[in-house]
C-alpha cells in the first residue's frame, strides 16, 4: 500500500507538470494579451512599458522557465496581471475559502437528499414513489442554472423580499446559492444510487442472503447499500474539487466573492498568471481526489486489490 501511494504521488507530480506546461503554452497561443481586458487599445509606448515590466516581451519558452523557477524556488505563482499587486497563491486560498462554504453545503445536502431519494426509488421500482423521485431528479437538471438562479432571486429577493439579492458574510446570503447548487448533485446521486442498487439487488449474493433468511432491511443495509455506494465515490471525487473551485454562474448572480468567477474571467482577461494558478489549483485538487478515490476503493471493496 505504501509503495502504491508513493508511486502515485510521483505520477501525480508528473501529471501536474504536464498540465501546467500544456496550459502555459496553450494560453499563450490564443489571440489577445493581458491588456485586452480594457475596452480599448493603449498607445504603443504604454503597452511596451507594461510588457517589459511583467516580462511579457520575452519569448514564451523563457517566460515558462522563469515561471517554473519562481514556482519551484519560492512556491510562488506570481502576481495577477489583471489585478496588479495581488499574489495569485494568496488569492487562490482567499477565494476558495469563500467558495467552499456554499459549495460544501450544497454537495452535502445534495448527497444526503440524493442518496435517500435514490434508495426510495430503487425500493419502489416502477411504482409511484419511483416516478415522483425520478421526476424531481430530472427537473433539477433540466433548468439551466442561470435561469434557476435568476428565478429564485426574483421570487425570494424582489417579490417577497425575504432574502438579500447579492452579498457575502451573512448566513442569509448563502441560502439561495446553496439551493441552486444542490439540485444537480441531488439528481445525479438519486439516479446513480437507484441504478446501482437495482444492479446490486439482482446479484447472486443478495439472493443468497435473502435465501438464508436475512431480513429485507438487513440485506439492504449490509449488502446493497455498501456496494451501491462504490460507483458514487468516483462521482464524489470529481465533485470534491468542484466545491473549492466554485461556480461561475451562481457566484456571478449572487455576488459571492469566490474562486469560480476567476476560472472564466481569467481566461477572458488573458490574466496569464491567474489562468495557470486556477488550473494548477484545480488540477492538484482533482488529481489528489483521484488518489483518495483509488485508495478508498481498495479499502471498501475487497474484490479490488491494489497491485
Amino acid at each position: 500500500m505504501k509503495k502504491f501511494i508513493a508511486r502515485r504521488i510521483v505520477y501525480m507530480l508528473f501529471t501536474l507538470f504536464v498540465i501546467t506546461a500544456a496550459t502555459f503554452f496553450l494560453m499563450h497561443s490564443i489571440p489577445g494579451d493581458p491588456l485586452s481586458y480594457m475596452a480599448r487599445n493603449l498607445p504603443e509606448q504604454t503597452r511596451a512599458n507594461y510588457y517589459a515590466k511583467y516580462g511579457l516581451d520575452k519569448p514564451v519558452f523563457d517566460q515558462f522557465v522563469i515561471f517554473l523557477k519562481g514556482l519551484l524556488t519560492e512556491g510562488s505563482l506570481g502576481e495577477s496581471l489583471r489585478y496588479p499587486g495581488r499574489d495569485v497563491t494568496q488569492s487562490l486560498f482567499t477565494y476558495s475559502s469563500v467558495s467552499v462554504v456554499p459549495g460544501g453545503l450544497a454537495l452535502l445536502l445534495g448527497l444526503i437528499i440524493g442518496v435517500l431519494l435514490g434508495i426510495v426509488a430503487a425500493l419502489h421500482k416502477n411504482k409511484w414513489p419511483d416516478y415522483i423521485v425520478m421526476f424531481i431528479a430530472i427537473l433539477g437538471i433540466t433548468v439551466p442554472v442561470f435561469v434557476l438562479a435568476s428565478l429564485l432571486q426574483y421570487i425570494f429577493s424582489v417579490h417577497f423580499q425575504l432574502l438579500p439579492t447579492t452579498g457575502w458574510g451573512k448566513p442569509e446570503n448563502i441560502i439561495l446559492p446553496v439551493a441552486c447548487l444542490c439540485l444537480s448533485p441531488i439528481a445525479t446521486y438519486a439516479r446513480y444510487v437507484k441504478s446501482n442498487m437495482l444492479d446490486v439487488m439482482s446479484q447472486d449474493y443478495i439472493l443468497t442472503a435473502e435465501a438464508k433468511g436475512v431480513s429485507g432491511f438487513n440485506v439492504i443495509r449490509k449488502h446493497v447499500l455498501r456496494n451501491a455506494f462504490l460507483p458514487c465515490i468516483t462521482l464524489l471525487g470529481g465533485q470534491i474539487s468542484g466545491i473549492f473551485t466554485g461556480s461561475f454562474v451562481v457566484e456571478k448572480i449572487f455576488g459571492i466573492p469566490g474562486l469560480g468567477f476567476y476560472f472564466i474571467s481569467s481566461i477572458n482577461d488573458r490574466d496569464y498568471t491567474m489562468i495557470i494558478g486556477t488550473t494548477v489549483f484545480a488540477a492538484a485538487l482533482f488529481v489528489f481526489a483521484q488518489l483518495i478515490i483509488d485508495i478508498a476503493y481498495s479499502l471498501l471493496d475487497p474484490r479490488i486489490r491494489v497491485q
Partner: protein
Amino acid sequence: MTVETKMNTAQIPDEKFRILGINEDESEKLARKRVGYWADAWRRFKQNKIALAAGILLLILIFFIIFGPAISGYNYEAMDQSAINQLPSAEHWFGTDTLGRDLFARVWQGGRISIIIGLVAAAVSSIIGSIYGGIAAYFGGTVDDIMMRIVEILLSIPYLLVVILISVFTDSKSLGTMLVALTLTGWCGIARIVRGQMLQLKSQEFVLAANALGVSPMKIIMKHMIPNTLSLIIVAITFDIPGYIFSEAFLSYVGLGIQSPQTSWGALASSAQDKFMFYPYQLFFPALMIALTMLAFTLMGDGLRDALDPKQRK
C-alpha cells in the same frame, strides 16, 4: 453465456411457474423458440409502458424538429419590426423574439442543432470513453496508470482555452467545430465511470473463466465487460445528452457557440434569460423542449437499462 443460463435458472420467479400451468399451448411454443439476447431485450423494453411512452414523445419531438420550421410558415431568421416581443397567439404560436422573429420556427430550427449535438457528441464520447475505460481497467497496472493520467491531464486543461483555440484554429463556429470542441474532453467522464465499474467486474468469476478459457482481451472487454457495464453507461449517456445541449448553451452564452443566424435551444434560452421577467414565454419554450428531451431520454434510458442488463434477464 454459461453464467447467464445458470443465473436464469436460479432466478425464475414463482409467477412463471403459474403462467406455464395456465396456458399449456403457449408455453410449449415459448419453450421451443430460443429467445436471443436482443430479442429478449426488445420484448422487455416493450413491456415497459413508460419507456415506450418516452420513446413516442421523442419521436414526436423529432417529427417537429424536422417539419416544425415548415409548419410555422415563417422563416426562422426573418425579422418583423411590427411584431416585436409578441405573446403567443394564433399567428405566432410561441410568440416572437426581440427582433420580431417567429419563435415556433426558431425553437424547432434550434432543436435540430441541439439534438444533433446531443446525440452525436454523446454517442462519440461514450464509444471512445467505454473502450478507453475498458482497456485501462482490463490491463490494469502501468497501462491503467498511464491511461488514467492522460484522462486527468485532459480534464484539467481549461476547457474554454481549448474551445477558443479550436475556433481560432479552424476559423469557424460551425456544427462540426462545435462537436469537435465538445467531444474532445467529453469522453473522459465516461471513461472514468466505465473503468471504475470494470475494475469490479474484472475480478468476478465469469471474467476469470473467460480468461482461463483463453478468450482474447478485446473480446472479453466487448462481450462480457461492456454489456455488464451498459446500465451505467446508459445512465451516463442520458445525463450526457442534455449535458452537451447545456454545454453548447454555455458556449453560446460566452459567444463561442453556434454562429448566427443559426441557433440552438441553449442559445435561445440564454438569450431570453436577461429579460425573462418581462417575456417569460421566450425562455419557457426552449427550456420546455430541453426538459422534454431530457425527460424522454431519461425514461427511455431507464427502460433500456432494465432491458439490456444481462443480470436482470428474468
